[in-house]
């Protein structure tokens, strides 16, 4: 790795990290304002123009709040849990490509922090590590509601990870590779996986909502039953870390969805690679707007559907999504065998 690559990588890391942070800030505000709009309200609109600085104000508030550590927590694990949740949440975006490779002075810079050959598995593995944070947070808090929340999250994430994995298998079968670039290039050459495997896309979408603990699957923090779920006993900055990792996970899941089923940075009917630098700009724009749509979908769904009951959640995961995922794999295999 020469100096240029090293420098390019560092710059990409900084850009991606800052972009995720800024998106979290925007998402925090969008969540509240869109919620307001859907309920005939205006939402927070006082801090800064259109309330743009509201999330910043919230962040500052979190920093200055008293940091309470309850007496009977398991201290080391209690302190570690938010970190365990947050680090994987920010790491997962590293393998998601957000544009066509950029040509600078004879070098090719991939618009992706790390192009590793097991990209898909990397994301699945890290999101599973993130679950440990939730479980440990619930377990170490020494209080019953967080414990229930943590248990629910582990059961829920295990169930839906399966369905998610099965949905991805179909995509891997048609594109023949585990890296995002192979998957996207394949979609660009043919058509988006969404048109070819709508069933897998649907299963993945539902599993994605469950994996990120968002409504209608936010059983882990069901506030009516569990006060706040796994983060009930957390305050101040530690709470903020959970909050940020939830949003970071939402962003990564949206990017993941876009790459797998909606062509990643591919803009339909345009060959980005032939357009030079403008192609790069276009592809990044395409990626950002697609991810933006899914971020909006998260908020949109949140205010439309009621929360599942726990047994309904489990039934949906094991009796509906899992068989559907298997059916999809079978159908794709059959189709490939008949075409070959």
């Amino acid at each position, binding site marked *: 790795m020469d100096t240029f690559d090293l420098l390019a990588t560092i710059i990409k890391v900084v850009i991606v990290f800052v972009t995720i942070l800024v998106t979290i800030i925007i998402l925090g505000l969008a969540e509240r304002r*869109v919620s*307001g*709009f*859907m*309920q*005939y*309200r*205006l939402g927070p609109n006082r801090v800064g123009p259109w309330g743009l600085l509201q999330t910043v104000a919230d962040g500052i508030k979190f920093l200055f709040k008293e940091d309470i550590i309850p007496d009977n927590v398991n201290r080391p694990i209690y302190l570690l849990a938010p970190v365990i949740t947050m680090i994987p949440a920010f790491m997962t975006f590293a393998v998601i490509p957000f544009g066509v490779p950029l040509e600078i002075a004879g070098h090719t810079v991939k618009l992706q922090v790390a192009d590793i050959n097991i990209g898909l598995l990397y994301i699945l593995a890290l999101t599973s590590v993130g679950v440990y944070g939730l479980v440990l947070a619930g377990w170490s808090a020494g209080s019953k509601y967080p414990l229930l929340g943590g248990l629910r999250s582990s059961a829920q994430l295990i169930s839906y990870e399966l369905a998610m994995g099965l949905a991805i298998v179909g995509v891997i079968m048609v594109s023949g590779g585990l890296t995002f670039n192979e998957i996207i290039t394949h979609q660009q050459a043919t058509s988006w996986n969404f048109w070819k495997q709508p069933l897998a896309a649907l299963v993945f979408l539902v599993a994605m909502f469950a994996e990120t603990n968002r409504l209608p699957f936010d059983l882990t923090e069901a506030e009516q039953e569990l006060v706040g779920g796994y983060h009930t006993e957390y305050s101040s900055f530690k709470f903020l870390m959970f909050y940020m990792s939830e949003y970071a996970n939402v962003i990564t899941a949206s990017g993941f969805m876009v790459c797998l089923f909606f062509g990643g940075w591919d803009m339909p009917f345009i060959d980005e690679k032939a357009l030079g630098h403008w192609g790069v700009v276009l592809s990044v724009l395409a990626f950002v707007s697609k991810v933006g749509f899914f971020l909006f979908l998260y908020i*949109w*769904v949140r*205010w*439309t*559907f009621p929360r599942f009951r726990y047994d309904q959640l489990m039934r949906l995961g094991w009796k509906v999504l899992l068989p559907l995922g298997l059916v999809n794999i079978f159908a794709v295999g059959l189709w490939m065998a008949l075409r070959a």
Partner: protein
Amino acid sequence: MATVLRTYEPRFWDRFYIPALLQGLFITLGRIFKRKDTIQYPESKHVPPEGYRGLHRLNRHEDGRIKCVACEMCATACPAQCISIESSPAPWEEGEERYPVKFEIDLLRCIYCGFCEIACPKDAIDLTEIYDFSDYTRDSLVIDEDGLLKVGDITQTGNVYQRHNRGEKVELPLAR
């Protein structure tokens, strides 16, 4: 006539929930573009309905004399006992013989029942539509005679919140 019980019979597609889910999504999406009910206080303020019982006022005769004759009917009727009046012979020649030198209402003890308004034989005390008076100390929420007369002057020319919403500048007493 027999009662017809309507039961929900899902059709074939309803069993997949997809049409219902999409329908729900479009309802919430449509709401984004509808008119919002939010009243952006303090730029615009809620106008309470007629007969709202808010801050008190003391009324004047046309020539500016206070209508109150310090009979203490209101103070007697007041269930919260928050009105205190000091009576004195009136300084003017014509008209009523007595008037209040001190007329105080403890707004924090008042329960806004409106009994004072009903008890008054002279139509001297009323409850107005003003609701947004607040302050940082208990002392400043004991309103005196001058304050009550000032409220009377402000509220004579129509609902203060309607005027405020029309862009008129209305100095509310007590309100910060």
